């Protein structure tokens, strides 16, 4: 029996099994135009006594960008667009990096866009991924396939059902960030102000 099972696995091949799973996961998550919801982020920095907790909400608009709005412990907005990364605090730009001139920023922006939107097709261009489906839920593990991203990430893990519900980023420097999403709305219409956020 065990031999038969092994033979089965050998014949079907593990990679194709994983690829089939990725196919299934891609179908479940789809390619939504927008995703919004709340997040809870736990950042584990090796030397720190306790993880750093933050909460807020976020909005991902396909092909436009991500608005990451932290409410606690202090208000702050992080915007990732095609053009740049901007950090704002109390309506003032505190930090800005151009994605049109900085290849590294561009690469990171694209990964984060795709992560929050669950755009696996885009992610699979820069990561090798393997997936597993268990009933309603699925899990995906990804390793960067390019040096540029390997300098930043060791591994990324995603979990979800119809949407991405949990992301875990293992940074190359040993830090780990765990993000949980709640109250996800898919394909909701963007208000005029929200559209303006990405300009």
């Amino acid at each position, binding site marked *: 029996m065990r031999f038969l099972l092994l033979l089965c696995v050998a014949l079907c091949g593990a990679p194709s099994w994983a690829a089939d799973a990725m196919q299934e996961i891609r179908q479940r998550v789809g390619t939504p135009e927008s995703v919004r919801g709340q997040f809870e982020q736990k*950042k584990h920095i090796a030397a720190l006594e306790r993880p*750093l907790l933050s909460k807020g909400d976020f909005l991902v608009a396909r092909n436009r960008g991500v608005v*990451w709005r932290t409410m606690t412990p202090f208000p702050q907005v992080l915007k990732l667009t095609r053009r740049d990364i901007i950090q704002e605090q109390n309506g003032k730009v505190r930090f800005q990096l151009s994605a049109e001139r900085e*290849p*590294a920023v561009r690469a990171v922006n694209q990964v984060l866009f795709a992560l929050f939107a669950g755009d696996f097709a885009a992610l699979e261009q820069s990561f090798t991924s393997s997936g597993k489906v268990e009933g309603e839920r699925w899990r995906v593990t990804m390793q960067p396939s390019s040096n540029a991203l390997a300098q*930043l990430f060791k591994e990324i893990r995603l979990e979800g059902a119809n949407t991405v519900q949990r992301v875990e980023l293992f940074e190359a420097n040993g830090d780990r960030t765990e993000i949980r999403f709640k109250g996800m709305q898919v394909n909701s219409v963007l208000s005029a102000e929200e559209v303006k956020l990405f300009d």
Partner: protein
Amino acid sequence: MTEHRLFPWLWLLVTALLALAAWRWAATPGAIDSDILSLLEERTNANLVSQAQSRLGENAARRVLVLVGGGDLASAVRAADASYATLKNSAAFARIEYQLDPARAQELQTFYAPHRTFLLTPAQRAALQADDRAALIDQALRGFYSPVGAPGALALMDDPFQLFAAWQQERGAATRVRPLQDRLVVLDGERHYVALLLEIAGSAFDQQVQQRVGAALAAAKQAAQPADFLSAGVVNFALAVQQQAQREISLIGAGSMLGIVLLILAAFHSWRPLLLALLPIGFGCVAAIAVCSWVFGRIHIFTLVFGSSLVGVSVDYGLHFLCHTRAGDDRAQRFARLRRLLPGLTLALATSVLAYLTLALPAFPGLRQMALFSAVGLLAAWLTTVLWLPWLARGGLARQAWLPRTLQALQHLRLQGRVVRTLAVLLLLASAWGLTRTSVNDDVRLLQNLPPQLLAEQQRVADLAGVASPAQFLLVHAATPEAVLQTEERLAVELDTVRASGLLGAYQAVSLWVPSQQRQRQDHHLLTQKLYAEGGWLDYLGSQVGLPAAWLDTSRAAHAAAQPLTLQAWLDAPASSALRHLWLGRVGEETVSVVALQGLKGQAGSSAVRAAAQRVPGVTWVDRAGDFSQLLQTYRIEMAQVAAGAYVLVFAALLWRYRRAALRVVAPTVLASLITLGCLGWLSIPVNLFTVLALLLVLGVGIDYGIYMEEERSDPDSAAWIGVSLSAMTTLLSFGLLALSQTPALQTFGLTMLLGVGLSWGLARGLRRCA
């Protein structure tokens, strides 16, 4: 005396030796100089600025920056790999910087990070000095709570306030070239370009090197297809100038030769006079090249272009003599004719050489070469005419042929005195009006006409990669290296103000990467006081995010033990390779560095930076193009004075021989020059140094016509007139073709010659009739 058999053979021997020297010169690599600036450089020599400039120039001239791509990263890398393979195999380059080993990509961090508590940005320093704790703490917290760290930054715990990350980011702003996937990449929106940094093997102004590099780049461009291939470097310009000059030499040389051949055949109906007329030219060129290469070592390409025009002038002596020989003359008769012509020929040589030699008076090394080249060439041509032609000449003008007949008819053409006078008055009035419209333009860019697509490509590369201007920069000089760095820091404050006004894009300076020891110690002290003190900002941050006490102690100890970055360590490290050329080190008694400028906005930008430089003692503003335009202006004025002086000298020489008639000899040339200037005014062509030079040559050539005509006032068989006409036509042919040159300077020169010589010839006849 010239009849003695010994002299021609002696002269032949001398010429043979000269030919040997000329041949050896031609076989030397790098014999032809095409650096446009070497024509002008000498006057500014022997000072700090020029020493620094030449050192900077040599370095900069050897570098070529290539960008390959235009699409996504993968296709850009593929195309760049193909280009790299071609370039590597070409042997045209001493060094090619392409694939980065991964360690080098991290260089910025590994080299500077140990000294990070000595390196602050101006904003950080200001915040610390202003005791603005909130600003630094907010920045730190943003880092701690952001989902991912900034790309390329140290781990948060190594740089909790992300001061070093911001410092690195500011350093990176000077160029858009970034390490990515083991390549140097420039990103422009969606377009990726992979950079290759090349250093050519040999000098950018060596013709052979230029051709090797040109061929290698063309092959690499082919290999990169269909991706874009952009290259920028001084060698590209030098190659373009060189190719253009070479094309023009062959065009002008061939055109003028062909014209002369046809003219002589038409006048003599025989090959022999043609060969005889060419003999002085050949001897002249050989002697000129030999003497110039012996005196100057290298001959500038412009000297050769100019020398090819000399062909049209040195043919005159031979032609003049040949027009006077007759079929059936024996040797004694030919020598008798020569004796009769000799005073005129000698005076013509003397005045021409006098006119050409005045070129050597201004301190232009290029002009001195041209003066010597022309004077030697003319003298040798004259000697050949006088010593050899009477021995070799047979026959004479084909008087029944159309050309001599037409010319003769032209001489005897009688116009109504009223018509001539009316025409003359109209011409003079029109010229006077034209003269009032004369404008001047001394821009150095007149010297070279660079292909627009080459300029556009250079500009595109500069925009993409942030290349500093090679023509405008600042020199910082002081007694010690530390003093230089401190001066640069004072200058930086001024330059930042100019940048804030948008007139300057960026600047590169060594002190941005290695601040002075004074500055580093001050910054380190500032951090000790504010961040690392007991109960300081680091402790406060620790309480906010939960930094363990043990980590805080380690961090404090590391800060206290850290050492500042030294200039020598920086100069020795691979990390400084891209910027090391800015440090010129010891020059004479002083230490000198360069502050390079990028994105300077026109004249306003130049003035703003110059003003900024003037506010900091020990800083010199250098504007090569501006300096050279200034030089051209100075020389134009000097040459105009020289030309006036030459007229006086020539007039004195003529007065000595012709007394009152001297005026009649000079008048055609003087009037021709004035009318030419008037025409240029009419045509709105600005006057520059090259117009003045051409007028000086019009003097040299035009006076000869007056002399020949005056020597034979009766001229019963029109020999003098036909001789002058043939001379004028050959001169017009050679200089007229210069007017077709793509180089604005040569074009103006050619046009002025065309008008000046044509008018001198016409007026030499016309005024005689009136008289």
